[in-house]
């Protein structure tokens, strides 16, 4: 369709769409299109939103059937970011799998890593052998990541409504967390930091102090963001009563996380089925009763504070450990633990010089061991496990099947966004087109995780 003179063309699409008028909008020509549509007088109008998204969510297509401004039917079309991560994992070792699953939901990468590693450890039956310090570091990273993920949810949600300030504030304070991640893992995203058996590297000296210094800034950022949103009449007007999904609907559609808690059910896997020692931390499960987009935002704000509470407690424990001396961060079993430790040299990050000296100069057996473990990997007993953890967006389920080999026989991630995006239809139908964006932002889907 020419963009200069929009007029209807007869569709030649799939069966059932013959003779249907088609419009292609290229921006700025809405008046002409609506005039043309009015002239043709079609009763049923289907609008494609996407497939693209100018925000951090990723590529999504929403098919809307509208009557005037009202949405009568909404369907989400996904798959644009499908990269076959699960299939690829079947051709890599168990350790290499972490590098792949971290790329699914790139806004909350450490949750995929943690869920996957917990599942591998369950299959190996070494859950209890994972060192205390590794578990503490995992909790620290996950809770910081939860704050970062909620920041993106709130900030990009605001950006989609045209409130760029919300986005800039949220991303400014997320940056504090990104800096911590970079200091700990070496990378801002795609960390591959949590490994089966522990974590890749102990915290560098001074990291706990760095986190402590960052917490007040993050807190201030949350408060600032809260002030300009939750009491803002425009924000309230756009969010309250929009994207309504009551408890029964949320349960039926399997939507957990903030969507479920905003509907009033205090369901959180960290409390009901604790992993990584979450039962030993003092935190509250946040609930709201609005069951709308606004309630979900409030839940996210309050959850960030609870996460920072957990971070404080982890820091206390980590510092107590620091005073006792060196603690391992990887299982003692040399048949599973990654043989080398990383170090920063003059030419960048790599295997520590000490380790290279040992395998190349003194111990042939150590060299063989290193080579075998890195190229072949370890074997995992045959069987299947399912590990579910509380992702910022809901329940993340990791289903692993092993045939006793050095690679996963099947790895499946039940991404919370994939499941939650199903609720878009029920949230939008009967509302206006403008509210679709609000409902979508309140679900907080990340299409990298949805499509995997």
């Amino acid at each position: 369709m020419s963009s200069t003179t929009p007029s209807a063309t007869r569709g030649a699409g799939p069966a059932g769409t013959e003779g249907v008028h088609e419009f292609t909008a290229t921006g700025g020509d809405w008046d002409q299109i609506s005039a043309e549509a009015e002239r043709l007088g079609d009763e049923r109008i289907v609008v494609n939103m996407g497939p693209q998204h100018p925000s951090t969510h990723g590529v999504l297509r929403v098919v809307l059937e509208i009557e005037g401004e009202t949405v009568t039917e909404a369907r989400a079309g996904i798959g644009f970011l499908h990269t076959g991560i699960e299939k690829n994992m079947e051709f890599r070792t168990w350790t290499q799998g972490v590098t792949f699953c971290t790329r699914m939901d790139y806004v909350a990468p450490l949750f995929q890593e943690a869920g996957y590693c917990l599942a591998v450890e369950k299959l190996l039956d070494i859950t209890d052998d994972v060192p205390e310090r590794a578990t503490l570091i995992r909790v620290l990273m996950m809770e910081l990541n939860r704050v970062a993920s909620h920041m993106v949810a709130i900030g990009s949600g605001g950006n989609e409504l045209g409130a760029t300030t919300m986005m800039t504030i949220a991303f400014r304070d997320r940056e504090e967390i990104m800096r911590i991640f970079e200091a700990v893992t070496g990378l801002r995203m795609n960390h591959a930091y949590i490994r089966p058996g522990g974590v890749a590297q102990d915290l560098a000296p001074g990291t706990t102090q760095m986190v402590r210094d960052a917490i007040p800034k993050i807190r201030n950022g949350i408060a600032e963001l809260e002030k300009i949103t939750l009491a803002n009449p425009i924000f309230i007007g756009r969010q309250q009563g929009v994207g309504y999904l009551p408890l029964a609907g949320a349960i039926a559609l399997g939507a957990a996380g903030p969507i479920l808690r905003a509907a009033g059910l205090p369901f959180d896997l960290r409390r009901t089925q604790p992993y990584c020692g979450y039962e030993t931390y003092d935190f509250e499960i946040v609930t709201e009763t609005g069951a709308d987009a606004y309630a979900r935002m409030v839940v996210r704000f309050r959850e960030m504070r609870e996460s920072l509470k957990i971070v404080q407690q982890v820091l206390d424990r980590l510092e107590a450990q620091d005073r006792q001396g060196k603690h391992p961060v990887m299982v003692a079993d040399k048949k599973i633990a990654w043989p080398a430790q990383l170090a920063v040299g003059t030419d960048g990050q790599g295997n520590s010089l000490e380790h290279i000296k040992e395998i190349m100069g003194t111990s042939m057996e150590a060299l063989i061991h290193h080579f075998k473990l890195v190229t072949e990997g370890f074997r995992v007993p045959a069987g299947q496990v399912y590990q579910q953890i509380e992702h910022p967006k809901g329940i993340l389920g990791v289903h692993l099947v092993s045939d006793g080999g050095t690679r996963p026989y099947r790895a499946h991630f039940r991404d919370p966004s994939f499941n939650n995006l199903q609720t878009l239809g029920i949230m939008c139908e009967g509302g206006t087109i403008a509210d679709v964006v609000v409902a979508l932002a309140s679900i907080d889907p990340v299409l990298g995780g949805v499509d995997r």
Partner: protein
Amino acid sequence: MSTGTTGPGEEQQREPAHEAQEAGSQQLVQPPKGVAPLELLEVRKGLFGVRGTGDTSGFGRLERTVAMPGPSTRPYGGYFDEVVDILAEVLEEASVAFEDAVEKVVVFRGEMTLYVVREHLELVARSLRDDQDLRFELCLGVNGVHYPNDAGRELHAVYPLLSVTHNRTIRLEVAAPDADPHIPTLTQVYPANNWHERETWDFFGLIFDGHPALTRIEMPDDWPGHPQRKDYPLGGIPVEYKGATVPAPDQRRSYN
């Protein structure tokens, strides 16, 4: 799978268990003491994925049996016994014997899997959801697993269930033969399974009978084949770097 070609040394070196052991797939392998019996799936020979006269690795006669955890016996431990007992009672009321609906119960790593006969899947799921002592309100979707050597039950569907009321988790597993890949849909019981079933159809070719709109979800609508099946190649091209060539992932050395 018609469109898939076999990966190098992947399929041809694997013999179905019943050929290797002259028994069905229910063959049990003697386990180490204190461990539940294992169910033999296949026997793999050699190493590194090379076969026949080209195999100069010296590992050609190496054999590895692939066996999955077999049926468990009572007590299953924890709440598992209670769940099974109540489910048996509820099924009894619907005049279905527990043994007819559930083939076996496997407890592995503290998780229970009920292997359900596909004809009774919906009844079992509905009973698990509705009975007040079971109340598995949440189904975390469905996931396929392809076992090309599990003769007559190549395609498996796994349903993790979660009870918010009683804080319990169990898993249902249903098998279907490749020749007749039909499983009844659970979207009537758990609407959340809608997209998950579409994904499993897309990736494995499992047809969920009664699903409202079973179309592809991740792959393009006109995509041939079902990519997560074991006979579907991963693909990829060799990468040249500083004079050396790194083969595509599915062409690299594998350790059976």
